[in-house]
């Protein structure tokens, strides 16, 4: 059973969606040229042969046409006007069944929906072939404490926030910050929910109207979450918010040198794989990595640099070099 298979080719998905849409509503049909344009992408010579077969334009003395679509009033419609059944593959069913065992699926589905899916999946003739089971996998969690506890209140807050994000509504929340300070009934524009798999936690990235800057709030610290009115000019809010975020991205990257020793290249690239980086060979078995970062990522970068040890050296900017040197000196002195 292969994950990478031809039936999942994007052109199969395209034609399935196209036929099914046309069967339902033939006003959605496209012209031959539009179909070609959407399908061709970075067109190549042999791909042209596929388009010719699909649009029945082959030289039939040499080959054959697909005879799946026909042309009527300049648009292409399915010859056999009947929908293409859409079925989840075994991999999808196995994955879904595995996911439904995860308590976080309750954040998304009503119990009734979940039961309908579970019973359909359990009644599958091929269910014995599902190869994803919790006891086949060991997820090396950083701590047993990193486990999201889904209380009734958390569930309600989560659903309210997701609904607000989806429908562009404002929110009113009470946030108890890490310092213990309570921000009562703050009016905020929600941006998106950030999930950290390492710490199994959700944070709401948002714009509180009193703070007037992007703020991140841990969902477990939120209470009294209430849905507000629609955000006027939502696109403008999104544009401004993302611009503000962009302004917190430092122009000067942290540049580090990595020695090709003790798997350091590999450990370093994995540790920084979720950063905007680019690397090049300096020669001398040394890799240079430039890390472009948001201001709020600075502490984590310094921790990662210390984590990687003496295989990594910060070259610039000076303030980060100084901070790393100060940390290293303090640590060295602690062992003297």
């Amino acid at each position, binding site marked *: 059973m*292969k994950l990478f298979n031809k039936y999942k080719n994007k052109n199969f998905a395209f034609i399935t969606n196209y036929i099914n849409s046309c069967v339902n509503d033939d006003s959605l049909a496209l012209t031959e040229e539009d179909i070609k344009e959407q399908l061709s992408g970075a067109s190549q010579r042999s791909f042209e042969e596929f388009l010719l077969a699909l649009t029945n334009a082959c030289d039939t003395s040499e080959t054959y046409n697909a005879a799946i679509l026909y042309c009527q009033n300049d648009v292409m419609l399915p010859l056999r006007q009947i929908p293409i059944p859409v079925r989840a593959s075994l991999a999808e069913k196995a994955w879904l069944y595995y996911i439904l065992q995860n308590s976080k699926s309750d954040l998304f589905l009503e119990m009734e929906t979940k039961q309908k899916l579970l019973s359909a999946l359990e009644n599958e003739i091929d269910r014995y072939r599902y190869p994803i089971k919790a006891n086949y996998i060991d997820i090396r969690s950083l701590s047993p404490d990193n486990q999201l506890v889904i209380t009734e209140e958390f569930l309600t807050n989560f659903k309210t926030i997701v609904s607000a994000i989806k429908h562009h509504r404002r929110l009113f929340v009470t946030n108890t910050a890490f310092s213990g300070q309570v921000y009562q009934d703050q009016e905020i524009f929600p941006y998106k929910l950030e999930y950290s798999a390492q710490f199994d936690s959700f944070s709401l990235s948002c714009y509180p109207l009193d703070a007037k800057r992007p703020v991140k709030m841990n969902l477990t610290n939120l209470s009294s979450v209430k849905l507000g009115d629609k955000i006027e000019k939502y696109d403008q809010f999104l544009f401004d918010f993302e611009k503000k975020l962009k302004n917190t991205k430092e122009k000067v990257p942290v540049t580090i040198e990595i020695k090709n020793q003790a798997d350091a290249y590999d450990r370093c690239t994995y540790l920084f794989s979720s950063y905007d980086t680019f690397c090049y060979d300096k020669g001398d078995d040394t890799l240079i990595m430039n890390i472009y970062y948001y201001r709020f990522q600075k502490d984590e970068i310094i921790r990662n640099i210390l984590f990687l040890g*003496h295989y990594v050296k910060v070259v610039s900017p000076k303030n980060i070099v100084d901070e790393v040197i100060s940390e290293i000196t303090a640590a060295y002195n602690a062992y003297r």
Partner: protein
Amino acid sequence: MAKTKNTHAFQSDIKHYDKIRDILRYLYMYGSSSKEELVEKKLSKSISSFYDTRQRIENYIDGEYLQEHKSKEKDSGKKYRFMYDPFICPVNYLAETYQNCSYVIDDFIFYFCLMQVFTDPDYQQKPYEYVSKKYKEIDDCDDYINYMQEFTINELITTLQIVFDTNQKLLEQLNGIGGDIENSEVLFTLPKVRARIIELADIGILVSTSKDTYRLSSDIFMDLNADELKEVQLMAQYFYNCSFLTIPGYYLSATVGAYAQSNFIEETDSFFNKQENPVFFYKNHGLQNVIDDDITWAVLNAIHNADVIQYKYRKKSGNLKECTTLPIKLVVDYQYGRQYFFCYDYAYKSFNIQRLSSVSDVSVTKKIKPPQKFEFVEEKKVKDTDIHQIYNHVYSKHFDYVWNIAMEENISDVLIHFHFPEECYAKQLSRLKSTRRHGTITELGNGHVDFSVTVQSELELVPWIRGYGAYAIVDQNANPDLAAKIKSNWEEAMKQYEIIQ
């Protein structure tokens, strides 16, 4: 006579994912390489093949993610990399590479004719109703199919031929485009149909109900309404972006989208599967593991079926080694974001842990047979116990007290003294709690915290301890070797910055 020229795959697609795996990984993880460097690193055969590969990749994923830039270094030319930014890339764009497995036009015709044979019995409209008044004879094949739910392969061959012939006939009548009646005999031969039916049954689109008889697999979304489907899709999008296995969820999200489009009409101007994620983004969202998803999937199947696999394993030297192992557990490391599998290695007659990203060309092998297959357990136990219970037992025995993934013969007790300044005590203690693995934290007051843990490999703690800088001091009496190691690490770092000689 129909020709058979249409049998070659379309150039931009690929048959085996192994062909692009390494270059995708390199451009995402290391990035910023010139075409000459990629050729030198054997990631591309030649400069000209690099342009082919680049064109392929641009065809597979949104072009904005593959960035070209002129390096500041002298004479280094254009460099390439995949970009990553949590706000600009809220979805795993590398997943899209899995939609490019090659096919030939025969596969395409076969699939769409076949799928229109399996008709929903509740579907009222007849397939050729729109022309049946004009062309009376067109309805014939419909009578033959009679909305059957199950077909033998021979019935399928006949039906497919009728459907294709009818389509050809109709195409000639409607558009004046002629076809050859012999085409369907060339397209739908017994070996061709059988091979493709078996493929579709293997991936679970069809199911075999008895020998040589097939039906469409059951519709798991049948009882769901449009809103429920949207909830399932959002859940799939969330989970596939943060779970150890992306592609099945990525496919599922597309399937739910296609299902909704088919059953609950939605306005659209594009029919491709589009990744959407307006609700979430992900911290430390390393996209790279998806590149190995087909390998992860093969390993999971091997665990499930207790199969022995053989594969090529890239050693640190870069050389490839042939391996034959029995996978026992998939191991996901959250520290670096790397994935492994714990297995029994027949060459060394011992247990081993293998990096998934070093594996390619996996296949199941039957050459290792019982009793050799389970030689690491008593034969009687294999007969009496469920094999997955044995797997769990073996794995626990080897992984008890492992800090992250490093196994060692001996275990030791480690004691580390932490001291956090008052102003950051709460924050640092919380960080310690959320990274402590299985260790015990004892708060001693005045910013002092003791941390004790039993581990298989002391050395595996070194990076974690270093990450705490001067806050963490290893007890020099309890763990002299570990303390000496940390001390020498800091000394090396001091030398690197030329603070000491």
